[in-house]
């Protein structure tokens, strides 16, 4: 399907644009037809479009907030899953923990992309973005906390010394019972 669409788009080689956005009649060679008032229509049109744009930006900002809050649900679900997984190391708990870590990271990487559709001059995306980032960081923190409860974070001295080889001794002594 995707491919077919692409072919159709690519197949449109030329086009004629019949819309006319110009407002001053003087700029045109052809005089306006009688009974056609450009001004009134212009005014009408502009107010309409402004209203439309306002509605759109409103909708966009609303949507952006919605998107920004989406990780919260995720967070709750993750928390539930983690609680289910328990605190022993096995395949399930490790899988959940790593997905809990991976999801926020990948989400944070794509912050710009997520808010791309809602980009608008009039829409302030900073707030939603910050919320989004904060929530994802929260998810990340949850993942790290889970990692720690599983004992997979090197936060104890034992994690640093467990593979240290024994210290060398300066002196050497041998011997024993004489061979009889």
């Amino acid at each position, binding site marked *: 399907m995707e491919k077919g669409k692409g072919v159709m788009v690519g197949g449109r080689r030329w086009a004629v644009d019949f819309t006319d956005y110009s407002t001053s009649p003087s700029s045109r060679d052809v005089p306006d037809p009688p009974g056609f008032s450009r001004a009134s229509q212009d005014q009408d049109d502009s107010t309409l479009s402004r209203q439309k744009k306002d509605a759109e930006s409103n909708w966009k900002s609303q949507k952006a907030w919605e998107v920004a809050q989406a990780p919260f649900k995720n967070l709750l679900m993750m928390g539930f899953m983690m609680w289910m997984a328990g605190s*022993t*190391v*096995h395949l399930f708990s490790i899988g959940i923990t790593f997905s809990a870590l991976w999801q926020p990271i990948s989400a944070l990487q794509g912050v710009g992309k997520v808010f791309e559709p809602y980009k608008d001059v009039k829409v302030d995306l900073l707030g939603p973005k910050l919320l989004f980032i904060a929530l994802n960081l929260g998810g990340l923190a949850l993942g790290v906390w889970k990692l720690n409860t599983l*004992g*997979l*974070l*090197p*936060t*104890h*001295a*034992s*994690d*640093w*010394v*467990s*593979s*240290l*080889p*024994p*210290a*060398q*001794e*300066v*002196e*050497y*002594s*041998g*011997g*024993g*019972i*004489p*061979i*009889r």
Partner: protein
Amino acid sequence: MDIRVFLLLLLVLVSSVEHGFSLYEDQVGLMDWHQRYIGKVKHAVFHTQKTGRKRVVVSTEENVVASLDLRHAEIFWRHVLGTNDAVDAVDIALGKYVITLSSEGSILRAWNLPDGQMVWESFLQGSNPSKSLLSVPINLKVDKDNVILVFSKGFLHAVSSIDGDVLWDKDFSAESIEVQQIIQPPESYVIYAVGFVGSSQFDVYQINAKSGELLKHKSAAFPDGFYGEVLLVSSDMLVSLDATRSNLVTISFRKEEISFSKTHISYLVGESLGIPVILPSKLSGILAVKFNTLLVFIRVKSEGKLEVVDKIANAAAVSDALSFSEGQQAFALVEHVDGKILLTVKLSHDWNSDFLKESIAMDHQWGLVQKVFINTYIRTDRSHGFRVLIVMEDHSLLLLQQGEIVWSREEGLASIIDVTTSELPVEKKGVSVAKVEQNLFEWLKGHVLKLKGTLMLASPEDIAVIQDMRLKSSEKSKMTRDHNGFRKLLIVLTRAGKLYALHTGDGRVIWSLLLPSLRKSGSCKHPTGLSVYQWQVPHHHAMDENPSVLVAGRCGPHWDAPGVLSFVDTYTGKELNALGLTHSVAQVIPLPFTDSTEQHLHLLIDSDQCAHLYPRTSEAIGIFQREFSNIYWYSVEADNGIIKGHALRSNCIGVVDEYCFNSSDLWSIVFPSESEKIIATATRKLNEVVHTQAKVIADQDVMFKYISKNLLFVATIAPKASGEFGKPTPEESWLVVYLIDTVTGRILHRMTHHGSQGPVHAVLSENWVVYHYFNLRAHRYEMSVIEIYDLSRAENKDVWKLLVGKHNLTSPISLYSRPEVMTKSQSYFFTQSVKALAVTSTAKGITSKQLLIGTIGDQVLALDKRYLDPRRSVNPTQAEKEEGIIPLSDSLPIIPQSYVTHALKVEGLRGIVTLPTKLESTTLVFAHGVDLFLTRIAPSRTYDSLTEDFSYALLLLTIVALIAAIFVTWVLSEKKELQEKWR
């Protein structure tokens, strides 16, 4: 972090599969081999013709009684008697019982000849130590009962051969006679007991064979005195040497009066040839006298007249006379003539003609002939043929028949003194490729069969073929190094002074060398091999050199006798160099330094406490001088109850030898002789590798192990408790154990077990020691563990400091800093008594350890070290359980599946050696005694490799199938897409 994850996973794996080391039935023989031996033969008795079967019954110096097949040298049956139950004599009675006299004549046993079942056993009373004589007369009957005559411990016993009842006995302990011979002439009911009273009186007792009554006692004085023993040359004539050893004395003892007749030896043989020795061969009418290498045969005529029959220069051994048809008697004589052996069978009455003369080429690695036993058989043309069984210098046993060696048994391997190991040569590329190409078809066929087996399609015949293929896999017996390090050479030194190289794959002898330096020679009268060490282990920059081993020996039974060193190439089995030393060898200390050719430096301590450095090169001395002040040595004088520490001082005074160093005493620990006696010591194995210094315990806490190469475990017991079992009371016996630092002489730990007794077996590894002893109060054996921890490092717990590496945990430490230590210990009951104790060792020391216990039943039991963990408690917490701590129980479990020897026995077990392989999870276990056994064990299962029976063909097939599936689906999807587009 990843290591931790790995270890945790490992732990989960291990704890879920509790006894992973057991075998399936079809895995027997895959990675283990077992060889049965009997030891150096002392006596051999052939079956008489009537019994028909071609067998020989032998008794050996390893206290083995065995019946061997004369055709193939197989062991029909074998009994290994206890270590202090040495066999004195063997004979066959009634044609169906093997009679053995053992334990200095106190135990008489009868074994069924065909199957070796014990028929009866009788304990003979007596107190005086004396010669033990066994005589099985052919026709002597008391109440229809064939009688066996035994003289032992001052008593003459007549024993029924049917049930072993003592029919009568005669006490000689009251008389002062030293009985030399018991003679029972055939067709008479008189037994003659002859012997010496003092050194110059000869006595004869005549005893009624039916009742044991004393019939007559004759006595005669011989003023010149006697030397040594008497030999019966004919039914009424004895021969001995006089006290000066210059006259042969013939004694006629059956007449009314005992008469002596003296003949000067130099008169007989013409000139003085040295000190004569009468050989104990019974040759009927002839005696053999040995002068150094010359053997003189002397015929005894009537009236005690002697006549020299023959002189033989290079004679090695003479057999007893064997009577065959028409009362003829023959004996075998073996000579060494230019590298071959010459076997002559002569008839006793007709010296001049040789009945048989054969020359046999023989491998010189067997050495000289030491004993000959002759047997006769009837050829197809009804004439008499002879075969002889010979015992060689290296203890091997050979059967010669018709001028050929029919078979040989390397019985030297039954008495291994020391074991070391050597790597095999690296595989050359060209060789292996050619081999694979040649066997490609075979290989494919094998894998197809295996695949069939995996898919359960194989028929019973196929399964048999698969099993056979697995057992005889040529892979395991190749002569090259393998990737996993399973293939090695075991270099073993035997009591006969012979060095063998055994392949770990199938146990075959690769080469053997009767060490020339450990053979009797003019300068070295009684050589004994002591131990064998790795001398040169080439790797890295000295790859072209062959590895070699050092064999240390000494020339004489005493420990101050001069030493002998021998260097042997382990690939070729040739002696590279031999050194006759001017000093003695009391201790050999391998030093942890190597020179540029990867030769290990060794320090030899002599009986004057001087240290001698080997190899004697200037490079070695340079390396040694650098570390001079840090090298110490210690000696344990078990008899005096003293442990002394020594430091090296300067070059020896008096001798100009820059490789010789004086030493001075640094410290000494004196145990009070009235309360403590040293019975056991243990140190860490030199080649043991420890992976980590920290032990992570529950709740991620950490404890630092006290890991020192210079740790010595000493066990002492109360002198009263050192006697037999059951003698001491619990109140007067105790066991004290010490952990001593051998550099500073500091006693790190001391503990007393009241009411305990030896023998103590101990093993020390990493930071723990496990020992086995007897608890008199509980009437049970116990095993205890001591773990020792370093408290001086315990503060290193700041994560940030560790993170940036600001700690001194890996910096070299001096033992003079006297680190604070803490010990934990625990004791458990153990139901078996122990012959040997060892611990598994792996290449990197990561794998968990197992104790290898040589049990009294001559088996090797693997016991997880986790059972001997002093932190075990009755109710371990959740965290401790997670750590793998087993709830405490009062006794250690013996799980039948954990016998690494499975159904086999290593008779006369003496030692267990573990050899790490390159594969971290795996270790080789070599157990030796009279038998040899080698197997491969994985204490935590083989977590780092696929199992042996993993089907690579199935894997390959799966991969191929998957790839094919990918291609097919890809093609199909392409097609479908194209159709979509055209629509």
